[in-house]
C-alpha cells in the first residue's frame, strides 16, 4: 500500500508564469513517454516479476514515478496559475483552457488524452524489463527536448533532475534484467505444458 510524504522529491518554485512551457511540459504528465504511463506500467508489471530484486525494483521505481508525476503537475500548475487570459491565448493554450481552465489534466503536448496504449504489461519478465529500459530512454529524451525549449532556471533545474532519474532507472532495470536472466537461465527443469487435447 502507499503512504504519502507531504513534500516534493525535488523543490519547485517557479516565479514567472509561462503557459507555453506548460503546454510542452504537460506531455510528461499525460503523454506517451510521461510519468503517468511509467508509473502504471511498472506498478502493473510488478505482479508478473520473478526474483525479489526485480519485484522490489518495479515496485519502488513505479512509486518514484508517482512522485515525478506530482512534480510535473506542480510545474504545469505554477506555470499557468498567474497567467492572464491573453497570455493563455498567445501561448496557444486556448483549446486546453476551454476544456480544463487552468486545471491539470493528463494529455500530451499536442492535446491527446492519456491512454493505456502507451504501455504494455506483457507478463514475460524479460520482455517487460526490456520495455522498461526503452521507456526510461524515451523519458530521458523527452526531458532533454523540454530543456532545449526552456530558458528559466526555475524550470530547467527540476527538468534536469527528472532527466537524471531516468538514467539511473535505466541502470536499475538493466541490473534487474541481468538478475532475472540469470535466474531463468539457471533452472534446469524445463516445464512442458500439457497440450489441451491431452487434458483429462
Amino acid at each position, binding site marked *: 500500500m502507499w503512504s504519502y510524504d507531504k513534500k516534493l522529491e*525535488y523543490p519547485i518554485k517557479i516565479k514567472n508564469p509561462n503557459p507555453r512551457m506548460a503546454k510542452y511540459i504537460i506531455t510528461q504528465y499525460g503523454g506517451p513517454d510521461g510519468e503517468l504511463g511509467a508509473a502504471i506500467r511498472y506498478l502493473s508489471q510488478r505482479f508478473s516479476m520473478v526474483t525479489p530484486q526485480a519485484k522490489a525494483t518495479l515496485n519502488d521505481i513505479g512509486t518514484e514515478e508517482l512522485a515525478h508525476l506530482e512534480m510535473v503537475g506542480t510545474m504545469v500548475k505554477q506555470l499557468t496559475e498567474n497567467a492572464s487570459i491573453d497570455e493563455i491565448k498567445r501561448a496557444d493554450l486556448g483549446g486546453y483552457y476551454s476544456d480544463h481552465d487552468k486545471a491539470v489534466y493528463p494529455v500530451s503536448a499536442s492535446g491527446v488524452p492519456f491512454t493505456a496504449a502507451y504501455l504494455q504489461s506483457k507478463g514475460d519478465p524479460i520482455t517487460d524489463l*526490456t520495455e522498461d*529500459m526503452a521507456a526510461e530512454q524515451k523519458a*530521458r*529524451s523527452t526531458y*532533454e*527536448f523540454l*530543456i*532545449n525549449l*526552456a*530558458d528559466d*532556471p526555475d524550470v*530547467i*533545474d527540476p527538468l*534536469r*533532475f*527528472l*532527466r*537524471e*532519474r531516468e*538514467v*539511473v532507472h*535505466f*541502470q536499475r*532495470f*538493466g*541490473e534487474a*534484467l*541481468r538478475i532475472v*536472466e540469470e535466474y531463468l537461465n539457471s533452472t534446469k527443469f524445463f516445464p512442458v505444458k500439457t497440450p489441451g487435447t491431452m487434458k483429462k
Partner: protein
Amino acid sequence: MIDSNADSKSCVPQETTITNVRLAHAYVPFQKFCATMTPMQSLREGTVFPELTGMYMHGWDPKPGKERKPWTEMLF
C-alpha cells in the same frame, strides 16, 4: 557521514568484463559501490553516484548556468 576507504583512483564503480554473453540478449554492466556525493549535491545532480552523471550528452543543451564543480571534488 564518513566515506569508506574507497579511493576514487583505485575503485572502479562498475564491472568491466561480462562473461558468457549470449546472442540476442542485452547486458547492462552492474554498478559497484565506490563513493557518493553529499546529500545536497546529490539532490542537485539527481543521483548520489557521480559515475551515473554526465552521460548521454548528445541530444540537448545542458544550459549549465552556474559553474558546477567537477564530481571528483564532490566526494566526501
